[in-house]
């Protein structure tokens, strides 16, 4: 090969190699990093839970019949025998900077036996959810976000057998109280946050997954006792833990 042709050949090959390198490296950056770590813990209630009053559904015989064998009570404080506090939502209040891809799952908010199932539901901002009516009676779903706030109050009637209602919240709010105007005892909460969250079970255990390493402020919210915060550091490959304790008033 002549000298100028050789130089040209080297230049072209180098350019191709450089381009390949750049494209490969940039591909690696675009691909989402695999879930790294999480935070888990237990939420406890110190003291005796306040008495949860039984609910008399006699004005709606269809629902009263469902609970005849197992009467239901209010769910303002649901504590297990070992003091585990249920329905506490633990979320990241500071430190979450991840690309908030709205979760693709569409959870269901069901009305069954004249109760909301689940009693507390976590949602990401802009995550769609479905409201269903599994009862033989009409309900109306009435979420009540903060008046004058960015989330708007709505109120929809849903007769028995009606198709699910699709809804979404556009801004974080902890928490949106949901009620049914026809059945005054029905009560539930939707907790809309950015980033991952966990909800405690009957034992008070919760888990937050898909957290990259970093320093975070965790907030735990319970409908009667309000919020508590804690700072947690998640290190790469090491699961972190954070426990909370609420004092029964």
């Amino acid at each position, binding site marked *: 090969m002549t000298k100028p042709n050789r130089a040209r050949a080297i230049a072209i090959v180098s350019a191709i190699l450089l381009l390949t390198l750049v494209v490969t490296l940039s591909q690696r950056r675009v691909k989402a990093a695999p879930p790294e770590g999480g935070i888990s813990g237990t939420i406890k209630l110190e003291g005796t839970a306040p008495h949860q*009053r*039984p*609910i*008399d*559904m*006699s*004005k*709606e015989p269809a629902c009263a019949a469902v609970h005849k064998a197992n009467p239901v009570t*209010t769910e*303002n404080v649901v504590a297990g025998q070992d003091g585990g506090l249920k329905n506490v939502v633990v979320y990241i209040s500071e430190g979450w900077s991840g690309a908030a891809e709205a979760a693709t799952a569409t959870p269901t908010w069901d009305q069954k036996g004249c109760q909301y199932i689940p009693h507390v539901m976590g949602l990401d901002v802009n995550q769609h959810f479905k409201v269903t009516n599994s009862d033989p*009676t*009409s309900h*109306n779903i009435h979420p009540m976000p903060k008046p004058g706030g960015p989330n708007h109050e709505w109120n929809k*009637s849903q007769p028995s057998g009606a198709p699910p209602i699709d809804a979404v919240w556009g801004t974080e709010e902890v928490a949106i*109280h949901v*009620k049914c*105007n*026809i*059945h*005054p*005892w029905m*009560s539930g909460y939707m907790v809309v946050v950015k980033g991952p969250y966990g909800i405690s079970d009957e034992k008070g255990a919760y888990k937050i997954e898909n957290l990259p390493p970093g320093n975070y402020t965790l907030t735990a919210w319970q409908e009667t006792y309000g919020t508590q915060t804690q700072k947690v550091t998640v290190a790469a490959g090491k699961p972190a833990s954070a426990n909370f304790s609420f004092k029964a008033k």
Partner: protein
Amino acid sequence: MGKLVAVTLALITIASAIPIVAHIWVPPADISTHGHLIDEQMSDTMAEAGVCFIAAQLILAAFIWMFSNRKPGDKIKNFPGGAKGLVTAAFLLVGTEVLALGFFGTKAWADVFLIPASANSMPVQVQAGQFAFYFRYPGADGKFGPIHPDKINEANQNIFGLDVDNDPDSKDDIVTAEMGVPMNKEIHLLMHAKDVGHSFYVRELRIQQDFVPGLDLSLHFTATKVGRYEIVCTQLCGLGHYNMKAYLNVMSQPDYDDWLKKQASMQ
């Protein structure tokens, strides 16, 4: 043609009276001490209005029959006194009928609305709110604790907005979703609305009273038969009005005592 109209009119009149006279639709069971007064008033009204209705329609049919084949040149006779006479006669007739019904019904009205509850009546409070009725019993101390509307929290089942921690009279108050009463005991029902207008209606008790927001109203009645009866809201109060009801349980005194004890344990 005119005679056919007259006959048809007479037949329709008689046919429509038959179901009423034959008592085909019977009113619901009367379980109240003043129920018979209301039922008698109803029968009196039906009888008076019925007699006037049949008389008027049959007289009309008779006139149609008699004068339907008028020939040209026949003169139409006028009612004595002309239009003025007719109006005066109608006024007197209808006026007498209405006044009579009102006069005969005064005892029923007074018994329910004007005579106060007797001193040994049992007070029960009822709060009507969109879209349920809830009841409150004063408990052993016989006193109702104060209501704090800002404390009303249906999610916590604090329907009446009681402050049990700070108001001693509220401590033994019993809040229920069903109204239990002992048989043959006069009940003094204290009524108020939480939000908009509602109405308390138990057809077997022959009792109906609107709730007016801002007013404390009361009724008294005595139930005479054991059973479970519907209390329905009969004043349009919103989208759940059709579903707004509660149940009245009339029980024997021992059953009522047991029921109240059970309700107290669920507070």
